[in-house]
């Protein structure tokens, strides 16, 4: 059960953490949960969860990030004091979207001691079409680096292998093979296989690991397709 839990989303940059985190937030909100999306990304300038703030707040979702950047678009890696709430026990589902790579995950160490003595989830999003996470050994090294720098443990893998509009079932299968190997070598289960909604009928026939999780692209502007 996710209520009162903190779910931290980490991974390589460009792996689709923010699209997953944003869609997962909507999924919980639609299930009627009191949901918060925390944007801890202080390494990226664009395509961050905070861009969804106005849209999400209309749907009753709290979006927390920095109290500076949202207003001024400045390159200040500041984090709002309210972010602490996401790491405290309570009645809300807290989804924490973290910046990419170990460098983006470093910020978690600041909050790690709040989670250490209670149950939390930390899931790593993996896209096997990203050159740095195309092979199990490299991906495992990245996983270990993220754990080391964040002082937290990853307990779920998410296969988010895609090639944007050109995604084919083969992409999902390539990612599935990768996360299965990784799961076997590091003992971390595969939680979800992610794909855009229109691919779900094809994906259902593939018997990929974890639960199929359909998403819509919330951050990518439609004119980029």
């Amino acid at each position, binding site marked *: 059960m996710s209520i009162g839990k903190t779910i931290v989303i980490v991974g390589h940059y*460009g792996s689709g953490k923010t699209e997953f985190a944003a869609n997962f937030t909507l999924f919980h909100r639609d299930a009627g949960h009191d949901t918060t999306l925390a944007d801890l990304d202080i390494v990226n*300038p664009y395509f961050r969860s905070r861009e969804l703030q106005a849209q999400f707040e209309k749907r009753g979702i709290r979006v927390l990030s920095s109290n500076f950047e949202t207003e*001024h*678009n400045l390159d200040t890696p500041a984090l709002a004091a309210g972010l602490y709430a996401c790491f405290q026990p309570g009645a809300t589902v807290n989804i924490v979207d973290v910046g990419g790579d170990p460098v983006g995950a470093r910020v978690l160490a600041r909050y790690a001691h709040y989670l250490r003595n209670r149950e939390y989830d930390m899931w790593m999003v993996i896209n096997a079409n*990203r050159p740095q996470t195309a092979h199990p050994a490299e991906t495992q090294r990245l996983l270990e680096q993220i754990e080391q720098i964040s002082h937290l443990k990853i307990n779920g893998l998410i296969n988010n292998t895609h090639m944007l509009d*050109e995604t084919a079932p083969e992409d999902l299968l390539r990612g599935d093979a990768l996360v299965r190997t990784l799961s076997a070598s590091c003992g971390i289960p595969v939680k979800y296989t992610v794909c855009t909604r229109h691919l779900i009928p094809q994906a259902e026939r593939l018997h990929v690991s974890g639960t199929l999780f359909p998403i819509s692209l919330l951050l990518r502007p439609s004119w980029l397709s």
Partner: protein
Amino acid sequence: MAKVLMKGNEAMAEAAIQAGCQAFFGYPITPQSEIPEYFARELPKRGGLFLQAESELAAMNMVMGASASGARVMTSTSGPGYCLKLETLAAMTLTRLPAVVVVVMRSGPAFGTMKAAQEDYRMNGNGGYKVVTFAPSNLQEAAEMVYEAFDIADQYRNPVVVMADGMIGQMMEGVDYDKMPPKRTALPPKTWALHGRGARAGKKPQLLFLPDGMGHYGAKHYCETQLYPEIIRNETRVEITDVEDADIVLAAYGTAARMCKNVIRELQGTVRLGMIRPKTLWPFPYEAFEQIGPKCKAIVVPEINIIGQMIDDVRIASAGRWPAHHVGDSQNDFLTPNRIRDKVLAVWEGLQ
């Protein structure tokens, strides 16, 4: 190598390494920091040198030094850093040293904000020099342009700039490195390069900044009267779409051109739109505008800035034949396809 999903900055860095870039000197600045990060990780593994300098000034002077020793060398920055690099860039055009400079534009003036922008179109150092300036509109193209930039720089002994807006640097897209442009053959040997005192064998220093027999002014005169016209003839790049029977022509580069393609699709059946997309900002494709057909009534120039910069070149190319209308950022927002569509429709209604 199959298509891989890349972030724009990574895609350009990887293309540079594949083009034989041997050294990178830079200094971090948003929204291009993934370029030095990529080089820091990849270049030493692949036999090259990465060095984070103490400033943009230092980095650019290191680029000049490495180029003088004959290396393929690159740096990257954003507007504020590009200002600092211009003095050395100008010096490299005078001393005829090749290099590649990637500029990922953000909103200024000065440190400005992190917002993506097309505001450095007119940014130049002193002295009337010219450098080929590429303007990519997608990541495949960004990678190809960086790849080819090294050959162009070596061919003419003149630096090449790749000017991407922040969106190009930060967006994700598939890139196929099997589709890089062909390597240019018969590039002139770098007989001028410095290889150390031992390599001189008692002769004069190898690095001749100026072509033999020419004084400073002679070299400058040669560049401006012969080299630059040759580059204009050979390296002007443009994408021209449906301008022969267009009612209105859109002229845009980079991400703004990308938005235009959506607007053209959306307005099909309402107004006949063509597009001129400069892929090189210098040389600017003035001649492309000669292909515009007799039905054209106006040119709309969307740019990610407030009052327009490239629009000046569009007006020169138009030579009074068509009015040129700017559309850009509003008080609160970046240029959007909707703003372009609304501008096109307003201009179209005004013509009825």
